[in-house]
């Protein structure tokens, strides 16, 4: 159960629209199923009442939508941001991607989001509805009339299990109060892979990346991937490719994508959330974050607007590549 209710959020958003502060709201809209939530721009109180949802499946990070949304009108847009979303929000501001003046940021407290794949693993795919019931989820399926009772903590998404912060890095107002930066264990998985032998690492990633279908969902959702034209879509870049015709291309795509967002990735985890093939893509980005922290000092992208990303910075005493690589090797 989220700390703040849908009711409180809608009331506040209605006030904002009524005051004329903003003329639209970027929020979560219910989809075909309860767990199938999509981003939407709401322009009226009625629309909000009808379609706005808030709950354990509102994982989508709206920061990236602000680029297009703010360009549309001179009026302010209100946006709902969970703590992890605010880092992306700041990072985009650092990169001058939208006009802060045109945004009214409403921070909402987040208790972690559920992973529908984990639920489906327990219940099977035929889910008809899910109701939040205190700390539990009542999952109704087509197989049975009685709901399956699942503890929410058992189906929390991976990124929420290793949540780095419940504190909002940016907001105009907060709903549901603020939390703290957490001491997360988010690099444990990376360390586990690092501890493997070279052959094991190769086999591991071969297994993961070869499943890629090049749907580009990871790129399209990524709040750091906001290029006007992606190098992979650009025939002049020398890297254009569109299909997983060869295993090299999967690697090329994911290495280059991770490299392009290195130092800019806030570790929001959207890439892995949307991947239809369940490839743990965040482990590539986290490897870069872990290395950056180890080589060049702790850095959290999006923590502060205007901070200098590690890859456009240097220190005269930086570690040499030959001393940096594979230090963790046995």
């Amino acid at each position, binding site marked *: 159960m989220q700390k703040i209710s849908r009711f409180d959020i809608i009331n506040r958003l209605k006030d904002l629209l009524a005051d004329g502060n903003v003329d639209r709201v970027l929020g979560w809209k219910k989809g075909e199923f309860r767990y199938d939530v999509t981003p939407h721009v709401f322009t009226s109180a009625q629309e909000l009442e009808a379609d706005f949802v808030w709950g354990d499946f509102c994982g989508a990070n709206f920061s990236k939508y602000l680029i297009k949304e703010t360009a549309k009108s001179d009026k302010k847009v209100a946006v709902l941001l969970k703590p992890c979303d605010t880092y992306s929000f700041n990072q985009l501001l650092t990169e001058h991607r939208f006009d802060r003046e045109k945004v009214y940021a409403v921070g909402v407290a987040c208790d972690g989001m559920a992973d529908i794949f984990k639920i489906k693993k327990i219940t099977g795919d035929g889910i008809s509805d899910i109701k939040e019931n205190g700390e539990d989820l009542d999952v109704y399926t087509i197989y049975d009339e009685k709901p399956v009772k699942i503890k929410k903590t058992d189906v929390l998404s991976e990124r929420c299990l290793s949540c780095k912060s419940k504190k909002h890095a940016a907001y105009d107002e907060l709903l549901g109060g603020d939390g703290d930066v957490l001491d997360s264990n988010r690099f444990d998985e*990376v360390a586990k*892979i*690092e501890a493997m032998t*070279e*052959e*094991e*690492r*190769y*086999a*591991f*990633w*071969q297994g993961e990346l070869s499943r890629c279908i090049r749907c580009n969902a990871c790129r399209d959702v990524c709040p750091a991937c906001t290029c006007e034209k992606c*190098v992979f879509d650009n025939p002049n870049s*020398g*890297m254009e490719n569109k299909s997983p*015709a*060869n295993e*090299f*291309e999967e*690697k*090329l795509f994911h*290495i*280059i994508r*991770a*490299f392009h967002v*290195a130092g800019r990735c806030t570790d929001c985890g959207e890439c892995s959330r949307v991947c239809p093939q369940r490839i743990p893509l965040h482990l*590539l980005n986290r*490897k*870069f974050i872990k*290395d*950056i922290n180890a*080589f*060049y000092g702790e850095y959290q992208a999006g923590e502060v607007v205007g901070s200098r990303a*590690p*890859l*456009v*910075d*240097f*220190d*005269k005493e*930086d*570690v*040499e*590549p*030959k001393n*940096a*690589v*594979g230090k963790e*090797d046995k």
Partner: protein
Amino acid sequence: MQVNEYKPLIVAFCCNWCSYAGADLAGNNRLNYPADVKIIRVPCSCRVNPAFVLRAYQRGADGVLICGCHPGDCHYTTGNYYTRRRMALLFSMLSYLGIEKERTRVEWISAAEGAKFAATMNEFVKTVTDLGKNRRLEDLRCKK
């Protein structure tokens, strides 16, 4: 008896001001190193995009070297400092993906270090020869 001797293909990106000049000096002094090394001239090591490194592997290279001025001596003052960061992270990522870390390397070679250039190439060719053919980052469509 016919010995099918494996000869690696090595691409060396050399910055125009230091390492390329170092390679020229190695030539001037007739310091031998294997013909397996092919040099591509770039203005500065910081011009080397990680995509070039991957592309070389894609097309069948067995080892890639990025050579620049010694840190602090960059012709453009700071270029090689960025190279150092970019390549440290790229190499670490390649190793994380299980690609042999010895295949890719950054070397700082000044215009005066012809001997170092030749020695580095000899040593690198040996290292890569010992590793054998690059199999983990190849593109089968580019096979000869």
